[in-house]
């Protein structure tokens, strides 16, 4: 089970900690803000070792005040620092939308390029037994903000590579880390490998149907693809990685071969990632027909009752059923 000589196997949190540590060493202007990210090392241990190495000036514990945290991050970035603000539950990103959307994302446009806001907001998304206000995936809300990049890795290598790209970008980036990915591990290449924005990854090649997913739902889609393969259905699974900008070319090329598209997300179907994916592919396909289905959370709050939580979320069985219905 050990990795090859060229790669190291790491936990998802270790990929994030490594990217942060390397970028802090590279850029002395990079400052981190978050709840319990200092000596405690972060809610998911993803800040482990940074406080000890870079100190309290650069790894700053904040109060539970998300609007102020993001506001301070925007101001610090606009004033010449580079900031990462960690939001432990994406649900509370809502409190910081004004500084993020109205200031960070618009500053460059508003000032004719004189002001840049190199800010990363890392927001931990997803349901894992914590109820209605600690479980949501609202990344689709942010995809429509001009000036804001939105990325959502599914693997340790992409968490590392996308976070490094985000920490070198000169505008605001929303980095979505799904909490169910934290127990997972993956290979990190031996050499530093940045992942560019707007580039999807084909997680599994196939010819019968294209499944587009991001973050934790990539694992759900791959599990469904395994089951469907036993029935003779060959699924292509595309890990979007970057939601804004979206890699429409990769999606279009896949759908041109399969003629069928299933989108999977843990957020809501209405105005969700899948709507945008399907519409963009439709526009690019220039009227050529393809079948489409969306799989998402049910239109209900996510319960802290584990039975109701599981019922609400997309799982491999629901993805499999959607694929079968689409192809029948």
């Amino acid at each position, binding site marked *: *089970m*050990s*990795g090859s000589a060229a790669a190291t*196997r790491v*936990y*998802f*949190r270790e990929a994030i900690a490594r990217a942060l540590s390397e970028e802090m060493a590279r850029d002395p202007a990079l400052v981190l803000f978050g709840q319990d990210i200092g000596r405690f090392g972060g809610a*998911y*241990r993803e800040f482990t070792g940074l406080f000890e190495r870079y100190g309290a000036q650069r790894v700053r514990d904040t109060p539970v005040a998300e609007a102020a945290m993001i506001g301070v991050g925007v101001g610090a970035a606009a004033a010449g620092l580079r900031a990462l603000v960690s939001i432990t539950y994406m649900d509370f990103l809502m409190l910081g939308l004004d500084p993020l959307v109205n200031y960070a994302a618009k500053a460059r446009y508003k000032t004719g390029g004189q002001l840049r806001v190199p800010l990363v907001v890392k927001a931990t998304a997803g349901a*894992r037994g914590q109820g209605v206000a600690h479980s949501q995936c609202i990344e689709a809300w942010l995809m429509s903000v001009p000036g804001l990049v939105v990325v959502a890795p599914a693997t340790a290598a992409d968490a590392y590579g996308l976070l490094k790209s985000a920490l070198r970008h000169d505008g605001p980036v929303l980095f979505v880390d799904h909490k*169910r990915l*934290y*127990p*997972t*591990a993956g290979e990190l290449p031996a050499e530093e490998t940045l992942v560019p924005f707007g580039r999807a990854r084909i997680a599994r090649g196939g010819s019968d149907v294209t499944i587009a997913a991001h973050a934790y739902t990539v694992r759900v889609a791959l599990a469904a693809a395994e089951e469907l393969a036993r029935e003779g259905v060959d699924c292509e699974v595309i890990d979007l990685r970057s939601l804004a900008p979206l890699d429409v070319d990769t999606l279009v090329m896949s759908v041109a071969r399969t003629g069928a598209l299933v989108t999977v997300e843990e957020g809501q179907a209405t105005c969700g990632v899948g709507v945008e994916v399907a519409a963009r592919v439709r526009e690019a396909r220039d009227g050529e027909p393809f079948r489409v289905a969306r799989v998402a959370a049910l239109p209900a709050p996510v319960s802290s009752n584990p039975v109701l939580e599981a019922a609400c979320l997309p799982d491999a069985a629901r993805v499999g059923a959607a694929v079968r219905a689409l192809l029948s």
Partner: protein
Amino acid sequence: MLYQLAVPGPIDDVEELRVLEWHVAPGQSFAAGDLVVELETHKAVVEVRAARAGILRSVLAPAGDWQRLGRPLAIVGDDSDEPLPAQADDLAAMLVEFEVT
């Protein structure tokens, strides 16, 4: 008789984990209750203690290696001269006690 020492479980959310430190060396004997190996999950350490006495014959997953739940980490035995099989998969599992901290 030979046994396999496998990754114990279930552990919440964990499918695979990393070997942190062996506390018994190959060829060394251990008593019931001894700490044999520590494993590292994404956020916790798993102490694996022997539920019976034995001898650690062969380590299959040294510190830093990864292994999935239920898969073998080492071969243990009642004595030190029984020939070792090529792989541990067919061996009975040795009973362990484990604590996640």
